[in-house]
């Protein structure tokens, strides 16, 4: 009864009255607006003009696409595909507004629009010329369009074209400050990773296309259970590699810390919040194409998700750079999403529809949650960057007093990302925990591993997230300013903090009314072919209702206690004094715990994981003199595995350079030898 009432209320918010043609018209108009924006920004004269136009074009395009996506969410156009007027080599430029695509599209439009509202005032602090702004906005618009095309693509060739456009435009955005060597390094690493991923995807689509006889997703979908087992294995592995590269599943996340640190905050927010999610769209689509699931696929995703989550957050905890910290935490969240995907597939392969539905819902809700709170935190870090001039946590401090509005939104994001109630992160993690209790009969070892992985794994990730984000908030927003720049910081203009509040409001809304969001996912269940929605709704909606009541009583008891405290104190002294220094009477801001000192217990506890490089100044004179101690933690994969391995390989290939000497006549000889070898070979074989 109540569920129906809720459905009705939610129904009012939908645009499902939109006729089919109108939805597509909105979608096409949005894409055209964004594409024309790419050209138009190039004609602007001043950097303000470029930014203003870029913002307007993004907002207009996102609004139109958002309306189409809201209509598509209702699932009314699920069966239809639409064709762009041009033809591709292997099929048509098909696209469709299926519910799953629309879900991602809506998220994309929201985050790119909010980041575009944020960007103009934020980019000012870089003091770059109009040319650099054109560079930024043109690629930003290309990135937005290409992401939209990726998630609506109906043909794999079209998909790969959009995918490449997305990778390249984000590559150029990462290189925004391309005069700096670290930005170029970040761009290069990103570029290499993306292309290794793209190769895997090409092979995967080739396999699927050959089996289906067409490169359209619809044909691949109708392949269903006819896929040969070996091929299914190959497709699964290739898709985890190819999409995992972009999404940053272990061990493919190594490009993220560098890229997100180098990119401007609005770009990092879009890349981490939504661009990575397009890879998850691909993964979900391919997994649902592959039809019947096998348990080992679920275990693969669950275990690699657990490793990604733990490593991601463990490395986030020891970062001193706000953006790098958020980048690693992005890895953590992809890990959680991947674990939820594992639960979904395990549920499907065990024939446990409740587990299947819980995993699938947790995955989608966490994808949405992470898009919201991670872009909130990246934009928040950007707001602090524009006020202080750095993203180094150890150079901030006390910013909540200087910029209370921004600070409040960042704290909300911090609570959300730690998965704490009443914000949205709690909902998806709660669904995952609950799934541990529906794993089935309790008497198998597989079950015990499943339960331990979820209860123990997710809670440890959560506790590390609390560690990381209390450090993040504590060193940047709280305490006393650590530098004069932090002391001079001011609240940024409203253009910067309003997007933060919209995002914080959305995270809180999902946390308070999760049922409304979960009900919206019904068409997605139908499209992907996930069963058990109603069973799940019957079992979790009462729990979510209790959570709502508990949150309500939490707030009311706190208000009550607040009133009690105020009335107790109304006639008494409320003194303000210096912080108690335990007898030391000359406190200084430098005595505060820094980000490094906060992380120290963790780096020494898990020493082998971090192998921190500690440079400690030695006290040489008889009297105390300044001593510097520095703890540097290098990335496990990139700095300690991939780059050394690459150097070693490069050393081997270096030896082949003797045959490259510039003597043209010898090169001609090589060609002759090669041709002869081919000729002889063709006779012999």
């Amino acid at each position, binding site marked *: 009864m109540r569920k129906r009432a809720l459905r009705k209320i939610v129904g009012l918010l939908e645009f499902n009255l939109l006729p089919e043609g109108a939805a597509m018209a909105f979608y096409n108009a949005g894409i055209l607006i964004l594409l024309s924006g790419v050209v138009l920004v190039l004609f602007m004269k001043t950097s303000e003009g470029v930014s203003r136009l870029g913002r307007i074009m993004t907002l207009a395009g996102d609004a139109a696409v958002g309306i189409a996506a809201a209509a598509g969410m209702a699932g009314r156009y699920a069966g239809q595909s639409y064709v762009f007027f041009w033809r591709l080599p292997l099929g048509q430029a098909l696209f469709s507004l299926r519910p799953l695509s629309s879900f991602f599209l809506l998220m994309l439009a929201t985050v790119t629009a909010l980041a575009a509202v944020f960007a103009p005032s934020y980019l000012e602090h870089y003091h770059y010329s109009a040319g650099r702004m054109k560079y930024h906005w043109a690629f930003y618009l290309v990135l937005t369009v290409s992401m939209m095309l990726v998630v609506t693509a109906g043909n794999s060739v079209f998909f790969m074209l959009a995918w490449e456009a997305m990778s390249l435009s984000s590559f150029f955005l990462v290189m925004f400050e391309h005069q700096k060597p670290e930005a170029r390094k970040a761009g290069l690493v990103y570029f290499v990773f993306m292309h290794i991923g793209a190769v895997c995807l090409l092979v995967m689509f080739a396999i699927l296309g050959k089996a289906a006889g067409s490169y359209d997703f619809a044909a691949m979908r109708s392949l269903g259970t006819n896929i040969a087992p070996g091929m299914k294995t190959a497709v699964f592995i290739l898709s985890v590699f190819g999409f995992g590269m972009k999404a940053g599943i272990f061990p493919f996340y190594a490009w993220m810390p560098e890229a997100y640190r180098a990119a401007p905050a609005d770009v990092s927010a879009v890349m981490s919040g939504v661009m990575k999610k397009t890879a998850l769209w691909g993964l979900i689509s391919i997994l649902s194409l592959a039809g019947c699931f096998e348990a080992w696929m679920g275990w693969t995703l669950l275990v690699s998700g657990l490793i990604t989550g733990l490593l991601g957050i463990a490395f986030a905890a020891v970062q001193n750079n706000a953006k790098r910290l958020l980048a690693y935490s992005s890895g953590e969240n992809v890990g959680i999403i991947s674990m939820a995907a594992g639960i979904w597939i395990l549920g499907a392969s065990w024939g446990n529809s409740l587990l299947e539905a819980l995993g699938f819902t947790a995955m989608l809700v966490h994808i949405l949650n992470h898009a919201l709170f991670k872009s909130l935190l990246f934009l928040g870090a950007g707001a602090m960057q524009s006020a202080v001039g750095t993203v180094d946590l150890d150079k901030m401090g006390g910013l909540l007093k200087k910029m209370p509005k921004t600070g409040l939104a960042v704290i909300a994001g911090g609570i959300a990302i730690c998965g704490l109630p009443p914000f949205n992160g709690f909902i998806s993690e709660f669904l995952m*925990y609950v799934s541990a209790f529906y794993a089935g009969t309790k008497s198998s070892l597989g079950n015990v591993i499943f339960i331990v992985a979820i209860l123990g794994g997710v809670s440890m990730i959560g506790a590390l997230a609390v560690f990381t984000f209390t450090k993040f908030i504590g060193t940047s927003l709280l305490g006393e300013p650590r530098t004069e720049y932090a002391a001079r910081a001011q609240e940024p203009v409203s253009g910067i903090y309003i997007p933060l509040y919209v995002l914080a409001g959305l995270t809180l809304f999902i946390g308070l009314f999760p049922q409304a969001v979960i009900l919206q996912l019904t068409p997605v269940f139908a499209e992907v072919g996930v069963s058990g929605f109603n069973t799940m709704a019957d079992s979790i909606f009462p729990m979510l209702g209790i959570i709502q009541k508990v949150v309500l009583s939490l707030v009311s008891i706190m208000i009550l206690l607040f009133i009690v405290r105020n009335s107790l104190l109304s006639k008494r002294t409320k003194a303000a004094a210096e*912080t108690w220094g335990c007898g030391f009477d000359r406190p200084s801001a430098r005595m505060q*715990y820094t980000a490094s000192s906060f992380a120290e217990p963790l780096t020494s506890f898990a020493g082998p994981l971090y192998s921190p490089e500690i440079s400690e100044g030695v006290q040489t004179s008889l009297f105390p003199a300044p001593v510097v101690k520095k703890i540097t933690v290098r990335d496990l994969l990139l700095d300690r595995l991939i780059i050394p391995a690459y150097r070693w390989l490069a050393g081997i290939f270096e030896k082949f350079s003797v045959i490259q000497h510039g003597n043209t006549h010898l090169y001609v000889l090589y060609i002759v030898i090669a041709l002869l070898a081919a000729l002889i070979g063709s006779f012999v074989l």
Partner: protein
Amino acid sequence: MMERALAWIPLLVAAVFSPLAAGIIRKVKALFAGRKGPPLLQMYRDIAKLLKKGVVYSQSTTWVFRVAPLLALTVSLIACAWLPFGAQAGIFSMTGGFILIAYLFGLSRFFTILASLDTASAFEGMGANREAFFAVIAEPAILLSFGAIILTSGNSSLWNAILYAQDASFAEYGVVPTLVLISFFILALSENSRIPVDDPTTHLELTMIHEVMILDNSGPDLAFIEYSASLKLWFYLTLMANIVTSIISLTGWQKTLGTFLAVMILAAIVGIVESSIARLRMKKVPDFIGAAAAFAFLALILEGVL
């Protein structure tokens, strides 16, 4: 109607008696040290005294510092309202209720840590850091222990596990709960800042965890924090007492009374443990809390085997 009214009993008992449990621990410790010790009801007097005082706020602090005590007390109250007491269920019960409670404690921890970082004090930062770090090991141990005890009755809530225990033999409901009990005892010590993890009565700030985090709290705020700490201690003692009375298969009012007695005895045991062992070095604390996780893990494996 009657049933709904009775559901308030666990909360009321906790609200009234929780400072007493803290008093028992202090008394036992004093007796072991050959002192007379403070009266059993000293904790009530301390809280009443603090409520009557004014307050001093550090100039470095913001609203975060003022919210944290309110949140800490609220969360402890909600946790005690959820926890069954003997044969009496709490105000609400559901599958995954313990997850909500564990995460609410997490929220309170989040704000307590932020509040102590808000004071810009080196000492409080140190306490906050330790609290955050030890939670990384304690949190999985808490959820695994709850998971193990709840799974004894299949897919259900803590209350159902307790109901199930009434009709079960020791073979069915004995081994796993005993292991979980050990795990919860370790967690009760570490989560409530007791020896060997933390020493609530120490005088040196460098060795503190919880006490050093609240150095700058005063007046009603400190009263809220102290009261919330005693409620949290009560929460853990009652949790263990519930399991003990379930293992020895008490029912009805005997069970409720038995739980009350068990809480008092457990408080005395905590006092004895505190008197008989020394504090661990900070570096050893993770191993100690890790033992709780290991016991819970073992309990879950046995559950798979049995």
